[in-house]
């Protein structure tokens, strides 16, 4: 038993719903109590879907237990088939139904429905949403993909996009465009946008693009083993990774090197080189998200934006190994946890200048007064913009530049804040002018000369406190922390102006 307040991932059947809702012509019969229907609103509200998810819940109640929940399941299955006439059904249990052990897969299989019925075993008390999505997609592919003649031209499948995914809709479009530029067509993109009939013809493509390893890896591995389709490992997020992805595609398809995509629409490199971006140099960023997006963000942050990565972690343990290896490279301690309180503590401790995280970290950032850009699920309604907004490929790189720089104080503006910080318009509480009300200043320092210092805290001389207050709010937390660390290392208990500037000199970069 573990006390949890906010969770990064839902239960595994929500992952299955993401696959089913992304597809067409598929229906999911879920053995579950009424309250589990809340999951529909994730799709209809957060993603603004215009259809109900293709899910029929049995909504059994206490009075049904022990008597006829199995009959209820069969009846629901039959009704759902009659009403929706899907090309295929997936059937399974949510956490409660798992305990009553009705075996939905077995029951449905014996009903003799005229369409494929795919049973899902998603252990709710061990696994989570991403795993549920990957297992569901794998089972669908395993049951439906059939050997077939290769497509006429050179084609691939783009695998892993689902409903409710972070920017999946636009990533699939962007990578389709990138591949078309290389002369490669897309046979099927799945699960997002595919029908069971489309899944059947997956093997007709030359190779697979594993767009989201969290969801597509088991399916990609199986397709390679059973149908000889190679698959890409590189996730094309950022300039470097997109180039690596193109190179990997070239190698898989045997194109003669050098293969390079048309980069005329790629603006990140120049935007990063232009002088206004000088102020991005060494910005200390804390990165947390799903493994794939966190790893990709770290690379872009350090190698393409010139930030300093001061924290790196993910919530899906399946990627712990990759994150640990990368963290070593960045010289940071890896954070593998699905407890947002741990994440908050880690962020509070390293006092980054920006967080690249999920919706959870956005709230942490709000509380701590640290700007945050969202790079990964879990998502909220604002992560489904009306505009085209991929994070992959060339346009994706442009989008990353914009969305990461936006929360930061703009370059010129930052200088002005330094120069005029005593001026009334540039006072401490004025955040970036384009984000009114966004930035929260660090807690106000109350200077109470006679009050004893709290236990374990440093004694700041009054003039040192005053000097500290002259430092702009967005770096003040770091200055305080650095000074105190510096003082602690030297056994200094009372911090004077001298200590402050000694520390500043010590940490100068």
């Amino acid at each position: 038993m573990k006390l949890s307040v906010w969770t990064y991932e839902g239960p595994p059947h929500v992952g299955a719903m993401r696959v089913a809702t992304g597809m067409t012509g598929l229906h999911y019969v879920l053995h579950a109590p009424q309250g589990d229907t809340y999951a529909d609103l994730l799709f209809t509200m957060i993603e603004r879907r215009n259809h109900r998810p293709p899910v029929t819940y049995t909504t059994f109640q206490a009075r049904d237990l022990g008597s006829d929940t199995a009959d209820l399941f069969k009846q629901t299955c039959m009704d759902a088939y009659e009403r929706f006439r899907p090309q295929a059904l997936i059937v399974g249990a949510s956490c409660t139904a798992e305990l009553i052990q009705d075996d939905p897969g077995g029951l449905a299989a014996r009903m003799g429905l005229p369409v494929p019925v795919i049973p899902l075993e998603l252990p709710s008390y061990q696994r989570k949403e991403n795993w549920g999505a990957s297992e569901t997609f794998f089972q669908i592919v395993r049951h439906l993909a059939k050997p077939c003649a290769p497509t006429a031209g050179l084609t691939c499948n783009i695998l892993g996009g689902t409903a409710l995914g972070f920017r999946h809709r636009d990533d699939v479009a962007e990578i389709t465009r990138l591949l078309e530029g290389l002369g490669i067509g897309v046979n099927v993109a799945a699960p997002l946008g595919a029908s069971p009939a489309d899944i059947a013809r997956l093997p007709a493509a030359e190779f697979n693009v594993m767009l989201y390893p969290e969801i597509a890896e088991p399916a990609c591995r199986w397709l390679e083993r059973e149908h000889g389709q190679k698959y890409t490992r590189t996730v094309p997020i950022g300039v470097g990774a997109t180039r690596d992805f193109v190179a990997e595609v070239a190698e898989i398809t045997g194109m003669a090197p050098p293969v390079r995509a048309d980069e005329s629409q790629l603006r990140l490199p120049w935007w990063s080189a232009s002088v206004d971006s000088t102020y991005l140099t060494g910005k200390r960023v804390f990165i947390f998200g799903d493994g794939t997006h966190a790893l990709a963000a770290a690379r872009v942050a350090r190698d393409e934006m010139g930030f300093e990565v001061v924290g790196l972690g993910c919530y899906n343990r399946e990627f712990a190994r990759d994150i640990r290896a990368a963290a070593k490279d960045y010289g940071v301690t890896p954070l593998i946890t699905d407890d947002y309180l741990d994440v908050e503590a880690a962020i509070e401790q390293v006092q980054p200048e920006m967080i690249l995280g999920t919706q959870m970290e956005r709230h942490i950032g709000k509380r701590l007064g640290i700007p945050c850009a969202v790079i990964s699920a879990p998502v909220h309604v604002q992560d489904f913009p009306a505009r085209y907004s991929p994070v992959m490929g060339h346009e994706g790189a442009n989008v990353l530049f914009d969305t990461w720089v936006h929360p930061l104080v703009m370059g010129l503006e930052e200088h002005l804040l330094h120069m005029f910080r005593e001026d009334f318009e540039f006072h401490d509480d004025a955040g970036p002018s384009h984000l009114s009300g966004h930035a929260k200043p660090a807690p106000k320092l109350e200077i109470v000369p006679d009050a004893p210092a709290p236990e374990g805290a440093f004694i700041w001389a009054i003039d040192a406190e005053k000097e500290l207050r002259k430092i702009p709010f967005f770096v003040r937390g770091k200055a305080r922390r650095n000074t105190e660390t510096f003082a602690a290392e030297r056994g200094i208990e009372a911090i004077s102006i001298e200590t402050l500037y000694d520390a500043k000199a010590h940490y100068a970069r």
Partner: protein
Amino acid sequence: MTSVITEPLGCSDAPILKERGQREVFCGLTGIVWLHRKMQDAFFLVVGSRTCAHLLQSAAGVMIFAEPRFGTAIMEEKDLAGLADANEELDREVDRLLARRPDIKQLFLVGSCPSEVIKLDLSRAAERLTDRHGPHVQVVNYSGSGIETTFTQGEDACLAALVPTLGVTADKQLMLVGSLPDVVEDQFVRLFKAMGIEAVRSFPATERGLAPKVGPGTKVLLAQPFLGDAAAALAARDADILSAPFPFGADGTAAWISIGARAMGVPQARIDAVLETPHRRASNAVAKVAQNLRGKTVFLFPDSQLEIPLARFLARECGMIPIEVGSPYIHGSLVADDLALLPKGPLISEGQDVDRQLDRARDARPDLTVCGLGLANPLEAEGLTTKWAIELVFSPIHGFEQAADLAELFARPIRRRAMIDSMHPARVTA
């Protein structure tokens, strides 16, 4: 002014369509979202699964607090293996929680479907934990599970579980039952005081120390139609449960307050004198907003059990025509007055078979459909105008001063639909 409740017509004898198909409603856990805000020294600990945690998070939406006063003890594989272990684990999590949160004075152990299916006895656990953490912390259990409760029934179960903890009094007092926003509660209390009733108590109270006592002198005025079990528990403690229409709209509020005041022995003339101004002000405000609603049809999907009283308000005070009034559960005795006041005509349904109900709504093409969040956008995409029902539970809608706001909740989607149709006559839905 009180004549509204004496008319012998309406839907009292209307047949009720009982549906037992697929339901599209929240479970009782959802009530925690508003209950924890009302009871400020309480923590709600759900003993459940990742699904329960995810539901709470999704229902709470963007209201992310640093550390809210609710959480889920997520059961894992090993908790399912043996109940002894599960109990031990629960005790440990509670110890940790209470050590970290010394401000907590009441702890609710909230049962879920998984905890009920494995028969984890939370009442025993609550006793055990009370021995351990009392008297500083009072531990009470109730079920918010989806196999036992629907949405607002969670609050009913919570309050019913609290009743045995209330002290005894024989004093004459008026008890308002149901967690109302403070602003609404204060308005009611002010009006009763103006009539000379000093002994007005609220249940639940904002803090454990302020919990009301109960006994033979207690007159209970229910503020919500879904509090059947809580009412029964209070009746078992010798309280007198008053029958009244619910305080929605100007007339509904006037009738509700009058019944409470009369039970406390206030003469009608005094009641009328106090209510006259606010009643008139509310009626005028509602009438203005209702211009947009008159003659329009409305279809209510089952959600919060507020449907019957709300339909009564929409029909009588806003001039709307209810086509179907669905409720997840109908406490016949509690909504009797509202049913009597609801003009004949609409289909009254209890329970749900969501696909069949959607078919009925599509056939009827109502001007306004009141439904849950899972159905709203899909119905909008089909050209129906919708109002999310959940807002009716999360916003202050009771009482005189909120009566026009309540009407506005229904009027706004209709106005917006007209705007959208003129701004974007042709539109593609996502």
